[in-house]
């Protein structure tokens, strides 16, 4: 499992896979008239819809990974629909991360496999099934174990690395309430929480004269840390730590502005 996920999270693999996947989906749509919605604006990895046969007059296969989602390793194995109207809807649904969702061979009419909204879905396998109007709905509430939480955290960090901060927050918020106390999840929640602010009456000195010093003398102190106060150089050093030591030794009345001149 972990190995597979590591592979799935490999950035180069994602970069390689997405255009290919988009091309396959576009081709399938053009050829069969099937509506395959692979999620706009979303990372979709390893989503496979294997060969399906449909002998009916109207077969509507809607594999909708849905908007605002990450979908990884979602596999729909060969399916056959012999009814006149076979409507197979595999919907990973909105506001969800879906990982390793496998739908095994099945046949039937109006099969709706719905992976449930507002939940991360992981390792959901739907065994062979047949039937009319069968609606397997996989509700994952309450079955997230430690491994699943690790997966969620990986997904969240992958989203962060893709600069999808809003989506990462949504994934976290989709976790069942009972998991809010998990230390690992709490840590991620804290990191991803929107910033909070508090006004402070504290003020710093107007540093215009220090800024002028920087403009006038930057060339002379390239690569140096400088401490400035009232337009004067108080101390300089080749490292921040060294500068801090010097400034503290000086016992200045005002706190100087510290700045590293670009080398």
């Amino acid at each position: 499992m972990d190995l597979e996920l590591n592979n799935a999270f490999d950035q180069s693999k994602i970069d390689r896979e997405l255009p290919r996947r988009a091309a396959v989906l576009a081709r399938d749509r053009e050829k069969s008239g099937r509506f395959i919605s692979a999620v706009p604006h979303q990372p979709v990895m390893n989503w496979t819809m294997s060969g399906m046969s449909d002998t009916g007059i109207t077969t509507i296969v809607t594999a909708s990974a849905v908007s605002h989602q990450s979908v990884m390793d979602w596999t729909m194995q060969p399916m056959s629909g012999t009814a006149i109207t076979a409507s197979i809807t595999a919907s990973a649904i909105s506001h969800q991360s879906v990982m390793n969702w496998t739908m095994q061979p099945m046949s039937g009419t109006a099969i709706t496999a719905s992976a449930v909204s507002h939940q991360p879905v992981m390792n959901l396998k739907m065994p062979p099934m047949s039937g009319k109007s069968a609606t397997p709905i996989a509700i994952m509430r309450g079955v997230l174990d430690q491994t699943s939480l690790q997966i969620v955290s990986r997904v969240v960090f992958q989203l962060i690395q893709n600069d999808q901060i809003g989506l990462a927050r949504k994934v976290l918020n989709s976790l069942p309430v009972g998991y809010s106390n998990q230390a690992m999840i709490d840590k991620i929640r804290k990191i991803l929480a929107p910033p909070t602010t508090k006004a402070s009456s504290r003020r710093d000195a107007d540093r215009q004269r220090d800024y002028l010093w920087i403009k006038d003398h930057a060339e002379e102190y390239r690569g140096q840390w400088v401490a400035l106060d009232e337009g004067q150089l108080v101390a300089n050093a080749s490292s921040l730590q060294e500068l801090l030591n010097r400034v503290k030794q000086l016992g200045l009345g005002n706190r100087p502005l510290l700045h590293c001149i670009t080398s």
Partner: protein
Amino acid sequence: MLKTSGGALFANGRARFLDEDSTAQEGTAKIFVKIEPADLGFSILAQLDTGSPWSILRSDVAAEIDFLDDLDQPITLHTRFGYIQGQLKRTTITILADDGDSLNIEATVFVSAQWQGGNFLGYSGLLERIRFAVAPEENTFYFGPCF
């Protein structure tokens, strides 16, 4: 300090900013505002960068406040220096005012020993919850909490 057209307070702090890094290789104007990371005890300059997904602290600043540990999940971000591995840390960053109120922000910042750049104030985890405006004719940065 600075009010909306409806008379509501928009920003209750302001500070002069430095508008250039004369030694930088590309010489376009920038906005450097005064900040104080928690536990540093001194003000430093950070470049305002709304295009940056995260705020970043210089590696030596991060080291000084003991942020270059391995206690948090490593994360790789794409930066102007390529892909860099580091960590996201929650901390207090204060934007310092010359006039009005300073602003303490419980923010998330990216730190990495590999980071060779300066300090940046990015959008996620910091700027996304503050109001700010710039008066370029007087190099003044107005800021305040987003209610």
